[in-house]
Structure formats: C-alpha cells, structure tokens
C-alpha cells in the first residue's frame, strides 16, 4: 500500500512536469486542451485478452480517431490484474474494465454491491483514490457465468450453481487461469456455495465452448455476452447466491490524462459506451467469434450505423 501511494505521488509529479514542459507560458489546463486533437502523445488505449475486449478497444479507438485523437491501441494486454498494473505503471492511459471485476479483483472487495449503480460508485471511488477514475458505464453487463452443455444439465439435473455439489468425483471447470485465484472464481465458489469438488482447467478465454463440445471439461466459465450463447445449446447455471456480480463496462482512465485531454475525450468515449446494449454487444461478439469477422470491421460497422464515425 505504501509503495502504491508513493507511485501515485510520483506519477502526479511526472504529470505536473509534463504539463509544464508542454506549455511553459500557458496554464497547464489550456495548454493541454489545445493539445487534445492530433498533436501531443497518442492516447494509449489498452484492452484485455478476449474478443469482447478487442471489439471494445476497436470501438473506442475508432471513435476517438474519428474525433481527431491519435490513439495507440494496445490489444490483448492480458487479464485485469496485469492490465490494471500496466495502467498504474503508466504504460496505458485508459482501458475498458468490468465494474464487478474491478471491485472484486482489483479493489479486492468481497461484498456484493446491491446494484450496478452502487458498484459503479464504489469502483469509481476506489479508482479516484489512486489517481484514476471511471468514465460512464455501458448499458450491457457481461457477467461471469458457469455454462454446461444442455445435455449435461439434463443428465445431472443441473439448474443452479449449488447443484454442482451433487456431482460425483472431481468436476473440471474450464476457465481462464486467473479464475483459480479470483473471488469471482474458485474462491467465491468455495466460499459462497461450499463447493470443494471443483478443479480448474486453465483455458485461454474463448476456448471454453470448444472444450465443452469436445468433452474436455464439463463446466466452463463464460461471459453472458458471448456470441456462442445465442445458439441455445448451452445452459447457464443460475447464480442464486449472487457470486457473479453485474459486469457492466466502464473505461478506467488516468485522471492526469483526463485533465490533459479535456472533456472531448470523455464525451467521445461516453457516446460509444452509451450505445452498447447487451444485444448489441452479443451480436458483435458473435460476428467475430462465429462469423470470423475482424473486431475492427465489426466496430467500424457499428460506429457507422450509430453515426459515431
């Protein structure tokens, strides 16, 4: 904790020095505003390591570029843990994060906020203490969920997560590696549901459905916005004890960058976020995962349709 606060002081110092260097005669604010478009260092936008994040990255960066910002899009940085560290180290300026993940995994909160708005407020407060803040959150929520094949659910009479306790032997869950250490993961499953017969088989995000189909795993962690779920051949186990939080997306951004780039950056990103409904997101994810389109062309089509480009 000590080290972290030292680091934020250091980054604030750097920000002040940078502002001074940019406009020696102007006040930091106006000098930075003039810098907003085109000139100045590009906005470094990071994304995590799966399809929806790739699409989000393309959506935000294309919208920003359309507004004249220079954007350095860093795709596929990694899991939340590593991406957030990159943000804190100053290697990234902004990245879209799931509010629930932010709270449970970064802020390390075990209690589930009562509503998405409360979660957002808590997360924002958490980030603001550290020199960051959250932009507006999306309408869609990409919650974590446990999925099983419809046939498997029928065979074992599975409906809720708690039902997993009745399965014989060890049950393999195909999940991203970090699932093992996350509260919204093995930790919470044990904690909330008392499940101790689970074993995590680490999979790259996006490979779970294939693993389910091939019988490599019986259960897989999925995202509620996954395009594959449109097929209805999978059953999402009901989270009756509220382990998996609402996961709306809010871009985490450095307050220094926000100050320097002014309101147009916020407005541009928020305009995109506002339009991202669950349906829209699921469609775009399916276009990439199922139809093999590229995230960039999918984002381009969406932004044009929404007149954001």
């Amino acid at each position, binding site marked *: 904790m000590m*080290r*972290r606060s030292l680091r934020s002081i250091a980054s604030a110092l750097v920000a002040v020095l940078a502002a001074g260097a940019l406009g020696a005669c102007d006040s930091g604010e106006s000098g930075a505003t003039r810098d907003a478009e085109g000139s100045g260092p590009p906005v470094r936008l*990071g994304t995590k*390591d799966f399809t929806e994040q790739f699409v989000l990255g393309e959506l935000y960066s294309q919208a920003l570029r359309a507004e004249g910002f220079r954007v350095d899009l*860093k795709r*596929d*940085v*990694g*899991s939340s*843990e*590593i*991406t*957030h*560290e*990159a943000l*804190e*180290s100053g*290697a*990234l300026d902004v990245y879209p994060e799931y509010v629930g993940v932010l709270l449970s*995994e970064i802020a390390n909160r075990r209690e589930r906020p009562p509503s998405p708005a409360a979660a957002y407020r808590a997360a924002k407060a958490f980030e603001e203490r550290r020199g960051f803040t959250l932009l507006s959150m999306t309408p869609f929520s990409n919650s974590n969920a446990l999925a099983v094949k419809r046939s498997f659910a029928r065979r074992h009479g599975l409906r809720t997560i708690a039902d997993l306790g009745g399965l014989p032997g060890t049950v393999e869950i195909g999940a*991203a*590696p*970090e*699932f*093992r*250490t*996350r509260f919204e993961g093995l930790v919470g499953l044990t904690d909330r549901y008392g499940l101790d017969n689970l074993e995590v088989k*680490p999979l*790259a995000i996006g490979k779970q459905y294939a693993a389910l189909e091939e019988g490599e795993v019986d259960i897989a962690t999925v995202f509620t916005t996954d395009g594959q779920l449109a097929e209805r051949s999978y059953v999402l186990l009901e989270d009756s004890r509220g382990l998996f939080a609402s996961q709306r997306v809010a871009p985490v951004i450095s307050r220094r960058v926000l100050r320097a780039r002014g309101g147009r950056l916020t407005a541009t990103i928020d305009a995109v976020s506002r339009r991202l409904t669950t349906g829209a997101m699921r469609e775009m994810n399916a276009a990439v995962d199922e139809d093999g389109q590229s995230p960039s062309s999918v984002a381009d089509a969406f932004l044009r349709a929404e007149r954001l480009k």
Partner: protein
Amino acid sequence: MRRTLRTRITTRVVALSVTGSLLLATALVLLIVAVAGQRDASRTAFRSQEALTAGSQLEKSLITIENGLRGYVASGRERFLAPATQALDSYRAELRELTTLLSDDPGQQRRAERIGDRIEDYVSLWARPLIALARDRPPAARSVVVTNGGRERLGAIRADFARLFARERAVARAREARAEQRSSLAIAFGVGGLGLVFVVAVGVVLYLRRAIVRPVVTVAQAAGRLADGELSARVPVKRDDEIGALARGFNAMANSLERGQAELQRSHAELERSNSELEQFASVTSHDLQAPLSTISMYAELLERRHGAELDGGTSLIDGIRGATQQARTLIRDLLEYSRAGRGRLRPEPVSAETVVKQAMEAVAGDIEKTGARVTVGSLPVVQAERSNLCRVFQNLVGNAVKFTDERPPEVDIGAERDGRTWRFWVSDNGIGMDPQHAERVFEPFQRLHGEEDYAGTGIGLAVCARIIEQHGGQIWVDTTPGEGSVFVFTLPADDA
C-alpha cells in the same frame, strides 16, 4: 611537310601508347573498384554479423527477463529477479545498438522499429506490471503467469527477430555475392586488359621494327656503301613519313656527294692536264731555249777567235755575251731541274743515308776544300727513298752550308734522329743565317735573299729540296739566327713504320 612529319609514325606511336595506357588504366580502375567494393561488402558483412550478435544479445536479454519474471512470480524470491532487472536496464541500449548496426535497408529498419515497439509493449504491458503485481499480490501474479501472455509476446518478438536475422543474412550474402561477382568480373577485366596491353605492346614492337628499324638499317647500309665509295648507293623511297623523309634526305645527300665528286674529278683532271702542259711547256721551253743559247755562245766564240784581233777592246763585249749566255743556260738548267724534281712516279728503295751523304760530299768536295770547311757526319739510318733525289737534297743543303759563310771557316754537322714514325735529318752550319721571317720564302723557286754578286746561284736549290722531300712524304723547314747559322731539318717516313 612538317605537318606530315608530325602525323605519321609519331602519331601512330603516340596513339598506340595512349591506347595501351588507357587499357591499363581501365583495368586498374576496375580492379580498384572491385577491391573497394569487396572491402565495403566485407565491412557491411561484418556489421551485419555484429548486428546479428547484438540482436541475439537483445533476444537473450528478453528471455532473461521472462525467465527471471517467472522465477520470481513462482518463488517470490527477489534473487530470481536480479538478472531480469539488469536486463530491463540494458535492453534499450542493446536495441539502439542493433538499430545502428543493421543495414540501412528500409525494410530492416522497419522490422527493427517493429521489434522495438513490441519489446516496449512486452516490457511496459507485461514485464513491469507483472513484477508489480507479484510484489502486491503474488497469487494473482501466479495465476496471470500461466496465461503465457509474456511467452506469446516473446514468441512474436522472436519470430520478428528470426525474420530480421534471415533478412540481414540475406542482405549480407547478397552484398558479398555481388562484390564477389564484381571482383571476379574485374579480375577478368584486369587480366584481359593486361593481355590486351601485352598484345598492344607486341604490336608496337612489331610495328616499330617494320616501320622504323628496318628502313633505318637500310639507310645505314646505304650510308656504309656510300662511305666505301659506292656513290651510286641509294635507298628506295616508299613512304611519306619520317622514314620517307630520311630516305629522301639520304638520297639527296648522296646525289649531292656524287655531283661534288664528279665536279672534283673533273677539276682535278683539268688541273693535272694544265699542270702537265705547264711542265711540258717548261721542259720543252728550257730545252728549246738551250739550242739558241748554244748557238749564241758558239757564235760569240767564233767571233772572238776569228775577229778577236780586229776588235780593239771589243773582247769585253764578247765576254759579256758569253757571261749572259752562261747565266741564261744555268737558269734554264735549274728551271729544268726544278720542273723535273718531284715529278713522275716515285720509286723508293732502301737507301743508306750514310752512303748517300758520302756521295753528296764527293759532289761538293771542291767547294768544301776551297772553303776549308769541316764537315761532321753522325750515324745515319737506312730509309725508303730514291737514291739520286736524296743525294740531291744533301748535296744542295751541304752546298748551301759551305756557300753562305762569312770569314769564319764553315763547320757543318749532318745527323739524324728518330722522332716517332719518322726520321728527322738535319744539316747545320755556322754560316750567315737569315732573318727568320724569310724562313718560309727560301723554299720557293728563284727566291734569293742575297744579290748574285755576293753568293752565286739561281735560288732553285732549296725549292728542289722541298719538292723532293714532299714527294717522299716528309716536311722541310729551317731554324735560323742571322749571323749565327742555320739548321735545315727534314723528315722522312721511317722504313719500318
């Protein structure tokens, strides 16, 4: 003509030399270019090699970072991180070194730039965040590490490296191959050029032999024949160049020489003819003059004998006639002698000068006795001469020596000594001598230094001596002091010379 002289052989020789030089220079330039190219290529290849080394070093640093990171995340022990931290400090410098060493091929620079970007991403988006995460939340870091995000990034970077290296090797190889090719081409050019230069040199030599040496030898041979007296020797004029000019000049010279020789022969013949006519005239005249003089003398005799008594005191007139006639006869005799002396073909034989001198002394014994002269004769050699002529010379010289004297009794010394290839004879006296300025004149005919009343003679003796000695191939002169005496010296070729 002058222009022609400058443009034929000279121009060709100059043109051939220039061509040869240009060929040689071209061969040299090509060689230099090739050597320089090869040097550049090897330098580039060396740089490429260094770039490959730098790239490998950088790659190794990245692997060190990744491994250190993993070791640290897995164990939580800082010592695993130490090499990674070190590598994190050094990778930028290594990247810069790589970029500077890489060939200036734009594709390579682009690849290096991409690798740089990827490394920066790896470091800032993976390595450093992971280290931070491992410090704060080791379990989270451990779960992240297995996502292999770092290995994937590293894999991409290494793939880029592989492409970069392959390209760099290919570039270096291509350059080496090009330099190699250029150098073999240049060596071929050089060898070919040298061969060509050799051929040109041989051509020049053959050309010079045909165009210069042979004609010059021809002219030289003709000149030799000319020198040997073959005045009709000429060389053919075949060409219009310098050699042609030489031949023409030689022929013109030979023509002029032949003309001059003919002229000379003509005038020589003319001279001989007129000379012999003159001699004939002199001999005929003096011979023919003797007859009337004898007649006059005879008539004067008859006149005295028959009418001497009647001529009262007229006998002195008759004596005058007789004396003048006698003088005329002497003159004519001497003239005849002079005209005969040194004429005709010389028939020399070995003659003992001592014998000849004895003979001559006998001839003038009367004079010697009359004057009471003392004559000493040294030892004298045997020489090639005509006995009678040599005798005449000694006779004249000894006669003069005892004649031109004052009151003192004459002392005459005759001797000879060897002087190189000649014998030098002398006849010295203690007579009246003469003014040295007349020393030359005394050898001319009928030149007298004294009146006839003082010393008898016609003044032909020394002229006769001079002609005889000259005919024998010698010289004659006199060293004299007035009142003290004279030394007449003459030379004759030594018999054995």
